[in-house]
């Protein structure tokens, strides 16, 4: 396009040559076309699982937690495992949008929109579990410190569960605002392109009357930076606080100071894996291979290897500390994890989380989409098992051996979990159908990168 000198080390962020109009069309055309067959099938399957999930949840809430496999000793298992799993997945979005924005990592533009959407959907899935895991969910509004008529009754600010309420709700709010704010210029594009009056009106309202003036753009840029600044600590705080549900308790295997950084690393690890999983499918299905490029996947794989290794280090540190502490209960808890009746869960976790990401030291493998896809699935499985191992194997054998039990899920728990996948994908399918899945405006801003670099 231009004759200006471009460093050969720079790689194009958008691989093929496009005009700005083509870029807009590549992303937004799908919104105006009728749904494709693939979309319809995918959406139907997701909605089907969601429906089953909702029915199972209705059954559970109307009958009692007893329909789950929990017991007197194991008070949490799949419910909180799933909660932490989904919250963890919800980490990548903010990390990509906020931290990478602040660090001026311009490659983020191709994936940030979808990653942020994924974050919100994952947090929505996560939010279900604290709600339905309560014995009397209809009274759960008591966890909010609002002025009430119950006299001296107030929430307990000592309880990590309460911090969770604040952390998750703050995170969800900021994520939604950040994501929606980023959508504004693209929504305006949709409004401008559409011929249907109805759509024009809806998107017109949705984009808050974006007019594309310099002043608007200026405000947009400033707000982006401010929100990124606000969101950055949240990336660390949310999972830190989630980890405190465990770390501040006295249960051997939970009561460890390493949990906050370990959980954050694990969350980023699982979040990036989930982004990889989704992006590899999306770029293929939506023909966005020029925007979500192999370079993106490559970069994310590096993060996965880094955080995966951190998690591996944490596993080792935990074991070392259990031995070094001289605390017999903790020592037993860790030996029980690796060699007790749930050994298979532990070794699934180790192989998925510690071993598989090490393959990404090889560039060839990082750029092999099929391979990355498989590994990303493994990482997701491994991270689910990590939470299961932490929660269930610590609880099922704690201080007094008289109360030691085994736990196994019932069909209700299994279908509730599948139901949240139904919700996640239903929302994701709706998202790519009705909202721009790639941040068009932002991609355009980096389109020239490694081309004429102006």
């Amino acid at each position, binding site marked *: 396009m231009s004759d200006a000198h471009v460093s050969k080390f720079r790689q194009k962020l958008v691989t093929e040559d496009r005009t700005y109009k083509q870029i807009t069309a590549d992303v937004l055309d799908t919104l105006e076309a009728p749904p494709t067959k693939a979309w319809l099938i995918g959406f139907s399957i997701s909605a089907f699982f969601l429906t089953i999930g909702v029915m199972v949840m209705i059954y559970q809430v109307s009958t009692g937690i007893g329909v789950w496999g929990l017991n007197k000793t194991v008070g949490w298992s799949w419910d909180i495992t799933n909660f932490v799993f989904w919250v963890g997945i919800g980490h990548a979005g903010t990390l990509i949008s906020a931290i990478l924005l602040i660090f001026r990592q311009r490659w983020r533009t191709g994936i940030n929109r979808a990653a942020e959407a994924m974050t919100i959907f994952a947090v929505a899935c996560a939010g279900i579990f604290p709600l339905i895991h309560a014995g009397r969910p209809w009274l759960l509004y008591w966890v909010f410190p609002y002025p009430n008529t119950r006299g001296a009754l107030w929430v307990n600010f000592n*309880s990590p569960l309460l911090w969770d309420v604040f952390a998750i709700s703050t995170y969800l709010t900021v994520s939604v605002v950040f994501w929606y704010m980023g959508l504004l210029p693209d929504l305006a594009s949709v409004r401008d392109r559409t011929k249907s009056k109805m759509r024009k009106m809806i998107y017109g309202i949705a984009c808050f009357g974006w007019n594309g003036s310099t002043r608007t753009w200026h405000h947009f840029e400033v707000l982006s930076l401010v929100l990124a600044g606000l969101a950055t600590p949240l990336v660390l705080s949310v999972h830190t606080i989630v980890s405190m549900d465990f770390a501040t308790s006295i249960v051997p295997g939970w009561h460890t100071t390493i949990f906050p950084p370990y959980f954050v690393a694990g969350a980023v690890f699982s979040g990036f894996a989930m982004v990889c999983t989704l992006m590899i499918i999306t770029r293929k299905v939506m023909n966005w291979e020029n925007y979500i490029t192999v370079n993106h996947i490559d970069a994310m794989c590096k993060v996965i290897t880094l955080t995966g290794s951190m998690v591996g280090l944490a596993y080792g540190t935990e074991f070392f500390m259990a031995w070094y502490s001289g605390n017999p209960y903790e020592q037993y808890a860790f030996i029980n994890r690796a060699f007790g009746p749930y050994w298979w869960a532990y070794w699934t976790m180790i192989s998925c989380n510690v071993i598989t990401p090490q393959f990404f030291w090889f560039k060839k493998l990082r750029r092999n989409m099929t391979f990355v896809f498989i590994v990303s699935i493994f990482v997701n499985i491994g991270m689910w098992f990590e939470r299961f191992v932490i929660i269930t194997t610590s609880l099922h054998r704690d201080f007094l051996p*008289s*109360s030691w039990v085994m736990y196994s899920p019932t069909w209700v728990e299994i279908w509730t979990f599948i139901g949240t996948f139904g919700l996640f994908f239903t929302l994701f399918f709706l998202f790519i159908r009705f909202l721009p899945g790639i941040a068009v405006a932002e991609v355009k801003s980096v389109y020239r990168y490694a081309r004429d670099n102006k």
Partner: protein
Amino acid sequence: MSKIETKGTGPADASKTEGYWQDVENKVLDPEALNKEFPDGEFDSFSVEKSRRSFLKIMGFSVTALPLTGCIKIPVRKAIPYLHKNDTVIPGVANWYASTWKGTPILVKTREGRPIKIEGNDKSSVTMGGVDSQGQASVLSLYDSNRFNGPQMDSKSVEWDQFDKALKADIAKSAEAGKEFYIVTPGLNSPSEISVIEKFSSKFGAKHISYEPSSQYSAAKANEMSFGKLALNEYNFKNANVIVSFEADFLGTWGNNIANTKQYSSRRNPKNAMGMNKHIQIEASMSLTGSNADYRYTRSTEESRNILLSVLKGITGEGSTKVIDTNSDVVSGIVKELKANIGKSLVISGDRDIDAQVIVNKINQALGSYGSTLNVANNKYATVANDADFNSFVTSMNSGEVGVAFFIGTNPVYDYFDSAKVTSGIAKVATSVSFAMSADETSSLCKYVAASNHNYESWSDTQVSGKELSFTQPVIQALFGTRMYPETLLSLMDETGSFHDYIKAFWAKNFFTKQSALATATDFWNKSLHDGVVSLEGLSPKVNTSSFSAKTSASKLASIKYGTGLNIVTYRKSTTKDGDMANNPWLQECPDPITKATWDNYAMVSPAYAKEKGIKSGDVVTVKSATHTVTIPAIVQPGTAKNTIAIAVGYGRKVAGKVAKNLGGNAFGFNSFVHGSIHNTTSFGSITKTGKFKGLAQTQTHHSMEGRDIVRETTFAEYAQNSKSGNEKKAKIVHIYPPHKKDGHQWAMTIDLTTCTGCSSCIISCNAENNVPVVGRQEVANRREMHWMRLDRYYKGDENQPEVMHMPMLCQHCENAPCENVCPVMATVHSSDGLNQQVYNRCVGTRYCANNCPYKVRRFNWFNYDRSDKLSNMVLNPDVSTRSRGIMEKCSMCIQRIQEGKLEAKRERRDLKDGDIKLACQQSCPAEDGIVFGDMNDKDSKISKHIGDDRNYAVLEELNVQPRVTYMTKIRNK
């Protein structure tokens, strides 16, 4: 005294209300009582200072609040007021009545006319306020909706008049035909019941025989052979320095287990002036008693009889030694201990072989135990369940000689070993009458069913011991159209007047005259009825226990031929015993003290045999003898002899209420009639796996302490050297925060692991007191039992001969409670008097508290547990709310009892005394000082002394949760 109790404004106010009356009916009410109805000053806040400001305040509140009330949906409650208020019933205040349950003097707590709780009568010199789990659970059986509504003839309901008329005619017809008339009862110890039966028998020429499926006939018969008196023994474990027990589960199911436990546990206290007793148990399968023994030897029936013979030889020189090499040490040890404690030792045997019991008598006689640790209880008012009598009765029935048979409170079709013979016999009896409370196997075959009252609807009396009588009085009107059986007998005799009149006259004639303290018969009656127990002399004439020879018995016992294969032994669980109370869900859900299994019986297999045959706990097996087969799950039970299979009786009920029906298998068929008595150890047979699996509903599945410092223990020898032995380790606790304020009352509890036998009476007492729901077999198998109190049982050492530890575990009421700071809504909080309290209404059910509880004592309501049976709901304690689903619950330290005790003290204008408040578990504990509760701020209280004792420790003290429930080390006399 905490602040609230000193708030009263004093007696000045009381005088103002004098002369007031409540309504026209109660105009004459004692003004003193009226004054005391509410504690003074409690309602002072209602009197408002009359000023403009307060007027506006109240006005403003009322005007704002009034429209709000329209928004609140108030549930409609239908309460029917008394038309004429009974002056003894004050709503909210319990009435206590003395009564008796199966020979145990008790107090029945009634609320608004409903019996809701059983407690021991501490006026009794025998049971001293203890009750066992069956006694605790008996109140629920009263409200059993499976009970008969009224009498039946040929399975059709009839009126009593009709019933009496028809039965009288049938009895007359039988007499004309010259047929025999039998009355079968359990062994009776009621003076007036025995008198009615005697009177009835002489009028109709009936023969009265006593029958119990698990009788102690062999011991009684042995006494007849040794000393000429068919009577049971009465023990005094207090005097016994050494107790050698062969197969006798005297703390659980054998003899007067409550009195035994009281006496036994007093000598387990290492501070007892007479020293600690030494308990040696020889048994084939682990019993509750064996689990408490200092030395327990797992030996098959054959081996244990051989040991008995050798001990006889060792002590008296009689008989021949027949000991296998491995047991010679055991024998010499026992002989040495016994000889060192002449007159202070006791040998007992649960063997149902008469000769074995004669040998035991001989050993005791030679050791000079009679008069010291035991004597023959020649009770005037007692009939001994007689195996031989019943056996010949069954033969007579089958030969068609019996015309009328009354089965009073007995169910031989179910619990006789040869059930088929009883069934065929009853078919040949023209007039068979069952006096049962609810349908059972026998009543379903009888022509007549004389529906009987429950114990708590009946009058009776009991000779508890040689010196004590106890009353049984009705505490509620008969719930159904039933009649107590003596009344039926009186009616058949055309006697006018009730059994109440009869018993009154009987007492005036027989017992009033034996005392001199009270002048009139009415006074004596009233006083006896009020106290429940009466001490009288001359109720048991002394029996001459002079020397005799046991040579014949020894040679007879030695010549017994044992079968080949596995020895199938039956035993009784301390909860369900013979199965007559099998329809009681509290008992079914109470874990067996040893196996921790609920809702089932099972074949106990030794670990060695299980390993050899590849049997695992829960494998369904077929146990087969020559005459009987049962298919039930197996359980691998440490402490079972290798060639022994032990199965509990009391299960496999075919005709019973919905709880008991088809639960487990009936093992009575493994009993047999040998050498003149019914034996429980004579079956030999095989065990085969069916390939099916039926998981057992156990409340504990891990049996080792994993080397953790949970139950601290030592030996008596070491304790004598160092009273801190076993308890030297003290965690170093670092405090970051200033200590908690400890003003006013500070409640605390100690549990003595040495005296606790693990009997589990406390579990059921807690169930009854705190409305703990029953969850059923499946939910227990899902590990969701709701018991607030549990008994952890750990094994140590060789799995063939393990040492056993019982540890009651309940909410430890930690000062730094881990459950409290994790609850997001503050549903669990600490009270100023040191209790950890669960606020049900506030709980949203996150279960975080339960996860964070190191003792795992919190119980979650996984469902709304069944409360659909309106009748059994009558047992609910109105002072304790029932919990709905989604809520956490746990031990509240019987806060309602604490409150009641405080209010009572306040009402009487005095300080609370140590011992005023007794918790439900503490009250029912048959062990001496097993559970102690009190105010640790009261330096003279028993609890302060226990806490200050060198044996005191906190479980998991290193966690610095500072529990208020602490334990006393377990001491074994080794």
